């Protein structure tokens, strides 16, 4: 099927945008429901059948709300922050392959690309923290900054281990080079990546930046209406991107029975499992203290990731 280049690009952009708009909502809905069931309650049941339209209702509510900019806020920084937080995930989603053919932008070093782009998202949080003109926001923003910088290192190291094993920086290439025994070989790296990903998303148990008992809602304290919705969307989009990335890197992406035709389904299935795991963490775990959080990153994750790198190196040299 040959399409003109422009049409293809537009089509792909539309598809990515659509995925970007629906998947986070699905994650949000899943969170509501999974959390409710794990806690032995029903969850939202009013809007739509079985509460399916709850998130749409939420969206309408957010749109109707007044968008308040505090008087002490740094106006432009405050207004731009949600967009800065959201857009990197959109760009990252475009580079993640769903199957060998299903990838919107198959750039050569797509792993590096995804990691680089998502690392920009931190500015949204920092800007929100600074721009709100609120001391809780500032503290939360600084916590977020420290946390994201700390956890980016083990994350990149774990990803580098997979790239080294596959011998390529391309996500498509990595997923194709994957074979089942990587599940064992790359297990430490996978755990490190998963933990670091949860920390990058600032979700429980690493949600000290938005700990409501300490800093209200951290950088997002002053946001209301659409701005807040954007941050919420960014968080869910982050879960989507990280789950997909984890799937492609450590779970073989679309590999599975009949992967020629069912490839994207496998990707989606595996990513859903990972996403539910991330949601589950939030429901099951208490919050980690700020110092414990830094300690975990530097004392546990970084060394483990380095050991994993060495392990991969040995493996590549021995079997490669």
């Amino acid at each position, binding site marked *: 099927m040959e399409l003109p280049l422009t049409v293809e690009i537009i089509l792909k952009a539309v598809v990515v945008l659509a995925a970007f708009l629906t998947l986070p909502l699905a994650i949000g809905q899943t969170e509501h429901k999974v959390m409710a069931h794990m806690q032995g309650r029903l969850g939202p049941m009013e809007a739509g059948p079985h509460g399916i339209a709850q998130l749409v209702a939420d969206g309408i509510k957010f749109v109707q709300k007044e968008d308040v900019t505090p008087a002490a806020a740094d106006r432009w920084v405050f207004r731009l922050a949600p967009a800065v937080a959201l857009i990197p995930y959109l760009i990252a989603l475009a580079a993640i392959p769903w199957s060998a053919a299903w990838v919107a932008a198959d750039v050569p070093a797509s792993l590096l690309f995804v990691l680089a782009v998502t690392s920009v998202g931190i500015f949204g949080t920092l800007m929100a923290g600074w721009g709100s003109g609120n001391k809780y926001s500032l503290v939360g923003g600084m916590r977020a900054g420290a946390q994201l*910088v700390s956890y*980016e290192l083990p994350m990149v190291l774990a990803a580098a281990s997979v790239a080294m094993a596959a011998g390529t920086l391309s996500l498509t290439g990595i997923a194709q080079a994957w074979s089942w025994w990587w599940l064992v070989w790359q297990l430490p790296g996978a755990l490190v990546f998963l933990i670091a990903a949860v920390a990058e998303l600032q979700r429980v148990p690493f949600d000290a930046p938005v700990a409501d008992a300490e800093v209200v809602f951290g950088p997002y304290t002053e946001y209301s209406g659409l701005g807040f919705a954007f941050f919420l969307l960014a968080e869910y989009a982050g879960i989507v991107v990280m789950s997909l990335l984890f799937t492609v890197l450590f779970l073989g992406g679309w590999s599975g029975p009949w992967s020629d035709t069912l490839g994207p389904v496998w990707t989606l299935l595996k990513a859903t499992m990972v996403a539910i795991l991330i949601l589950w963490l939030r429901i099951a775990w208490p919050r980690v203290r700020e110092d414990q959080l830094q300690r975990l990153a530097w004392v546990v994750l970084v060394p483990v990731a380095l050991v994993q790198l060495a392990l991969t190196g040995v493996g590549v040299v021995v079997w490669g």
Partner: protein
Amino acid sequence: MTSRDVLFVAVGLITAAAAVLSVTNRRVLHAGLWLVVALGGLAGCYLVLGAELVALVQLLVYVGAVVVLVLFALMLTRSGAGEVDTSSAHRWVAGAVGAGVTVLLGGTLVAAYGWSEREVAGPSNDAIGEQIFGTWVWPFELLSLLLLAALVAAVAVATTGHRRQEGER
């Protein structure tokens, strides 16, 4: 002018403008944010020049980590208030020196390499990887030592002041 030229001019203008704003903006955090734009633009320039690996590393390391640290330091030093620029006379002299650097560097470089159109043909990512772990492996290893030394030094410098302060209390 090729399309690449046009693209570069566009990205370059953004970069240059952001750079100027980052050194003239009087609100410290805005200066830091403009630096983000400037360095991100620089990554874009690399991309236009075909050096995608460098561009991505620039984005990952510089924008994702280094500038975050800068912003962090700005927040920690709580330096919103007070003058951030030197006196105006001083600024004029500084401007003159800066302009001198631009003219001198630009003049020399353009004079040396000229305006002629050339093919963009940089090394591939594989070639870069092979060179780093082949020809450049010793400097590379030395760099790792440098990073380690910087890490230790940063911790040492940061904690020493802290301890002294606690000792005084």
